[in-house]
């Protein structure tokens, strides 16, 4: 009876600590996207290079990444070397969504830092960004053959996020 008396508050305390501990490790800026498992919003946008538009319909049948970036975005510079490596490895095509940017600035930025994108599309007024629920550039979406969003990375890509989440998922989807 005596052990029961102090073990209940102790158990409650341990549960509370566990919750708080997990809460400490979570990033409140990462809002889970409601788009996961849903069809990627369609778009038909002008490309940054050349004047042919690109639409989501053309991307059906392959696994692709959509990387939302901008020339004004500072943390895009952080993930850029990884995107270049990814492009070099040729594992998965990466399409760049140039978000709320001046096309001239974007072209200059890519010329200076290297262009990892299979194609870049221009979302000057940010409407496609809103459709994709973009709120913190850079963001990266993994989209499968059927055009379903399978994963969303908020913030810059990292070696860990690529190796642990994105690349295994891409390989799985490409099977």
């Amino acid at each position, binding site marked *: 009876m005596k052990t029961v008396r102090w073990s209940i508050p102790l158990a409650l305390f341990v549960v509370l600590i566990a919750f708080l501990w997990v809460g400490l490790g979570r990033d409140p800026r990462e809002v889970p996207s409601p788009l996961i498992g849903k069809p990627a919003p369609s778009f038909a946008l002008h490309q940054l290079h050349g004047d042919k538009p690109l639409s989501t319909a053309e991307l059906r049948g392959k696994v692709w990444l959509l990387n939302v970036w901008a020339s004004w975005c500072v943390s895009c510079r952080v993930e850029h070397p990884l995107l270049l490596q990814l492009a070099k490895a040729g594992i998965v095509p990466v399409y760049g969504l140039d978000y709320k940017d001046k096309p001239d600035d974007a072209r200059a930025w890519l010329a200076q830092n290297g262009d990892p994108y299979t194609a870049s599309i221009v979302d000057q007024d940010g409407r496609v960004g809103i459709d994709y*629920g973009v709120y913190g550039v850079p963001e990266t979406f993994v989209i499968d053959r059927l055009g379903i969003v399978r994963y969303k990375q908020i913030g810059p890509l990292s070696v860990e996020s690529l190796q642990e989440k994105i690349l295994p998922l891409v390989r799985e989807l490409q099977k």
Partner: protein
Amino acid sequence: MRPCPRLACGIALAAFTLVAAATKMDVPADAAFDTRIKTLESELRCLVCQNQTLADSNASLAEDLRREVRELALSGKSDNEIRAYLVARYGDFVLYDPPLKRTTWLLWIGPFALLAGGGMLWWTVLRRREHAGRSTQRTTDPHAEARGRALLDDSDEPPHTG
């Protein structure tokens, strides 16, 4: 300057009157529309600066979302449709007043459940204590009482020093 032809003058005057009338009539309607938009915006969260509403935020995304809300409202969408539009893109997090559903019931019920649990615990502890007090009174046996008295008498003696 040539005086304008009578017909043109007439048309211009009519147009002017119409525009004046229209703007005059639009003013109260617009005010209502503006308050509706403002109310809606103050119920929605800006995702960039997460503790500000769309109405308060100066972030460029908030500007875009305000534009979107206004356009949706102008196209005849209801408040609920506009909320649903944003929830479909950004999740329930955009709502300052999250809906009650499977993933949020703990959030809604939790504090009340905790309060009720604590209240019940408090009540049972009080009950038990009261009960315990009463039962010791009842079960005091003469031997124990005598022993207690002896101990009390003992303490009357001057304290042992050294």
